[in-house]
């Protein structure tokens, strides 16, 4: 057990899994960096976010492959390699770039196993970054996990802590299906104690962050921290919330959510993805069907507004849900 950042927990997982299985390869832009450039360092960048630093030194160019800016080709190559028996980990630098390799992900990776009658498996992990907060505007700040969730055949993980990042990534890599692993840009520096050895967190098992009988709050990724902050503040006012981090949207641990709603009768979902056809509405809808009779109050979704993401810091801060908005949503239904 050592204190590690979210970034380092992910890097450590890559080291450990690549050591375990020689069929794991890394594919992406600037995974090492400096390819062909003749600079002093072998991995001048070690990934756009510095996550993959050191891997090329350990595992060599045969297993750490820097690519041209050709997401469609290298995602396709990763899928093809997965079908052919490797276990690629491909990096999509920003999840927004789904735009340029969408066909590979939604039409190839997601459908390959099913459409061809189960003949091949696609043990592919796509690491990508999500989230606003860096003031880099509409095309680099989105949280697109709802899109990945919409298409059956993919699995989708959104670690909110360093511990979960390691355990979920281990599971993702060992899983035989394509997994989209969404790293939140603003969490890379988050630190906590993380075991040094390998461990796997099963997909579809929520983490209950806090327990309380008044209101259930479900949140993903960085919003787990926002929700927890809100729940702590509410606790001081005597309102006790359960905070649930489902950790994966596919599979989704509805059991844990529904059990809590059974007790509280009140649900708030906090998500950084868009409000329309998003994961918040997804969970709200399931609850309004299955758990209708347990509900005592309206189901509240706390998401950004329906608007592209602006660059201006003050507007971006208004855009992203914060603890105050979560508290307002809880308070709006608490009295009912």
């Amino acid at each position, binding site marked *: 057990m050592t204190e590690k950042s979210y970034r380092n927990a992910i890097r450590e997982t890559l080291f450990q899994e690549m050591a375990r299985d020689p069929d794991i390869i890394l594919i992406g832009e600037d995974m090492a960096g400096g390819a062909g450039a003749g600079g002093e360092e072998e991995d001048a960048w070690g990934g756009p976010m510095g996550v993959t630093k050191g891997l090329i030194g350990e595992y060599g160019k045969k297993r750490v492959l820097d690519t041209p800016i050709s997401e469609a080709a290298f995602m396709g190559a990763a899928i093809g390699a997965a079908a052919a028996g490797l276990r690629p980990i491909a990096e999509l630098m920003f999840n927004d770039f789904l735009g340029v390799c969408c066909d590979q992900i939604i039409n190839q990776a997601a459908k390959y196993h099913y459409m061809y009658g*189960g003949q091949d498996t696609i043990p592919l992990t796509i690491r990508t970054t999500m989230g606003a907060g860096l003031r880099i505007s509409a095309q680099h700040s989105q949280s697109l996990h709802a899109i990945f969730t919409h298409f059956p055949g993919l699995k989708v993980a959104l670690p909110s802590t360093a511990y979960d990042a390691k355990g979920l990534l281990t599971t993702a890599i060992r899983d035989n299906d394509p997994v989209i692993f969404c790293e939140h840009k603003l969490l890379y520096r988050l630190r906590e104690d993380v075991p040094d050895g390998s461990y796997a967190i099963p997909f579809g098992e929520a983490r209950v962050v806090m327990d309380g009988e008044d209101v259930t709050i479900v949140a993903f990724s960085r919003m787990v921290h926002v929700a927890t902050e809100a729940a702590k503040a509410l606790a001081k006012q005597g309102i006790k919330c359960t905070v649930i981090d489902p950790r994966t949207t596919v599979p989704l641990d509805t059991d844990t959510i529904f059990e809590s709603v059974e007790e509280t009768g009140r649900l708030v979902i906090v998500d950084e993805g868009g409000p329309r056809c998003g994961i918040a509405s997804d969970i709200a809808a399931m609850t309004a069907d299955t758990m209708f009779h347990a509900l005592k109050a309206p189901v509240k979704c706390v998401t950004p507004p329906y608007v592209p993401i602006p660059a201006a810091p003050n507007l971006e801060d208004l855009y992203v849900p914060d603890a105050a908005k979560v508290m307002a949503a809880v308070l709006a239904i608490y009295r009912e």
Partner: protein
Amino acid sequence: MDKKHNQLLWAYRTMQTIRLFEERMHDVFTTGEVPGFVHLYAGQEACAAGVCANLTEVDYFHITHRAHGPAIARGADVTDVAREIYCRRDGMCRGRGGSTHLHDAARKIIGANSGVGSGAALACGSALAARHRGDGGIAAALIGEGGANQGVVSEAMNLAAIWKLPVLFIFENNGYAEATSADYAIAGGDLSARAPAFAMPGEIVDGSDYFAVADSVAAAAARARAGEGPCLIEVRNLRLYGHYEGDAQKYRPPGELEEYRRTKDCLINFRAHVLAEGSLTAGDMDVIDQQVAALIDAAYEAARTAPLPDPEELMQNIYATNC
């Protein structure tokens, strides 16, 4: 000698099987019993056969929506192919893919793909895996000349070149993408001109000539196996039928197909060639014709009478690891 003889018998049998399979499909399609869109490969047989003549067990063959012929050329079971086209439970994809998505993992026939061109990227992955294993395998990808205009194909060519991947990009230029002519859609009209752009060799081959295709692919495959990287081969041919069954083909210039059938039919030309050089006899080929005809009868009969998938199959094989 024996090897060459067998190879010729194989080539003739393969092309004849495809031809008769597709002619039968053309006939039965009108009955309405074949579900979905059906794209026939008749007229292009020499291309798939010429490629597959050079592939071994470790090699991958990426095919397109015009899938029947290439799948058969690579040795897929003809009944299995027919059953999949009929969407039967025991089709090669359990009836989930249909005509345009034939895929046979055991034979490394890789998914006919509806997004045209995407096979080029997947093929880079097959080649990468083969190289990783070090088994000498290569990936040959068929791509229609229309699909070659997809950006992912250019990306894949560049990627294969810089990674020196053993990929053969086989652009099958049958003159049309749906109703649009290759001359209109391809700047300069010549796909082989894209090879130097991505620092690889490229050439144009007469797709009606089995030997020309096979020779060109042999050289490219040898190069790829030797670690020298990808090649581009533009194979020129025509399809004998419409884009898909039901296409009235009003875009064709008058007489185009008649002329092609007369001078460029790969089966007629193959026959003439082997008879002229004395490498096969008419008898050899007549026997094959009969065997193939029987095979096709049996395959269609089996497909027609095979059961559809069980309803439970709808929800199976979504994930490989339980979820």
